């Protein structure tokens, strides 16, 4: 899932300072799971901003909403009027949510309340770690199911490097060496021969290069006729 972190309250307050009427929109998907932009976090942020305003003698009007998935236009339309009725919208979703609102209502200001971070998994309660960088060319079938691109500090395809010591990475001794983990996993799977196989240079053209990546599935796309029908329903 996408893991994000709330921006510091003062940074958000500075962004919103010139505006009187503010709509805060949270998201019940990834950012709710990583405790950054769900219902509770939205309410807490609004309360903190109100207390700050009270201290500073400022008047701002806040309205808070949480949608199911802020990255999908259908859910945003539910709060369309509330968004357009405000001076600015603070998105408490990942950057995808904030940009979806921005794309739908380009004349309206939408600011990010969160810093979008990683594709991560919950390791334990309150801890999320990165396990994918979305390179677009997955090779974990050759590395025991462990991604060296995201988990090795040098994204090495043929590791470990000379900086691996006592199963730790030279970049940061707190960080486990991804290739030590790959070795262990391949050993359990009795596939250690794979670690001796030299991987050729990776095709990075599927990664973030050459602008925005767009994935399409032709059979799922609507025909112009279907699009017209959907628009009519909406």
């Amino acid at each position, binding site marked *: 899932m996408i893991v994000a972190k709330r921006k510091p309250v003062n940074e958000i307050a500075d962004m919103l300072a010139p505006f009187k009427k503010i709509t805060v929109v949270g998201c019940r998907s990834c950012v709710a799971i990583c405790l950054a932009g769900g219902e509770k976090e939205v309410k807490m942020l609004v*309360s903190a901003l109100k207390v700050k305003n009270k201290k500073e003698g400022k008047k701002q009007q806040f309205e808070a909403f949480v949608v199911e998935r802020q990255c999908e236009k259908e859910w945003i339309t539910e709060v369309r009027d509330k968004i357009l009725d405000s001076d600015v919208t603070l998105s408490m979703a990942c950057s995808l949510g904030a940009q979806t609102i921005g794309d739908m209502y380009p004349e309206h200001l939408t600011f990010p309340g969160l810093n979008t971070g990683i594709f991560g998994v919950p390791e334990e309660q309150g801890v999320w770690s990165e396990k994918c960088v979305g390179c677009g060319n997955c090779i974990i079938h050759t590395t025991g199911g462990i991604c060296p691109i995201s988990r090795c500090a040098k994204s090495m395809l043929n590791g470990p490097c000379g900086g691996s010591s006592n199963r730790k990475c030279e970049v940061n001794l707190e960080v486990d060496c991804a290739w030590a983990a790959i070795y262990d996993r391949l050993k359990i799977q009795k596939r250690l021969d794979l670690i001796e196989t030299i991987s050729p240079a990776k095709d990075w053209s599927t990664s973030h290069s050459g602008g925005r990546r767009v994935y399409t599935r032709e059979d799922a796309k609507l025909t112009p006729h279907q699009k017209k029908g959907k628009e009519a329903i909406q």
Partner: protein
Amino acid sequence: MAEHKPKLVCFCCERHGIDAAVLAARSGKQYDASVRIVTVPCSGRVDGIHLLEALDNGADAVFVVGCLEKNCYYDTGSIEGRKRVNYVKSMLSEAGIESERVEMFNAASTNAWAFPEAVSKMVEVVKKLGPIGKGGEPQ
């Protein structure tokens, strides 16, 4: 100008926390009448949103009274409560608001002075800091 009368909200666990408050009253210990006690099943039930909304709705300070950490009725409830209080303190600091306005206390049900002491500490904090903003009225 009349002295500001503190408005305090106390989230009190219904085990050691409230017992400590009741024992204080039964023992004749006095504490400031400005405190409004909200009983909760466990201090671990208190969420950051309760603390922040209390401040937003006019409280000058909010505090939580739970069991002693090594003698919590629900084992780890008061540890959870303290974590939430600390998170709210960090949010208040980020916002430039005095984090002392939110506090966590632990009390044993057999300790008659623990609750009045917690109240008087918070009253002192509010007397030192004054209300949040002019008049401390909610928006």
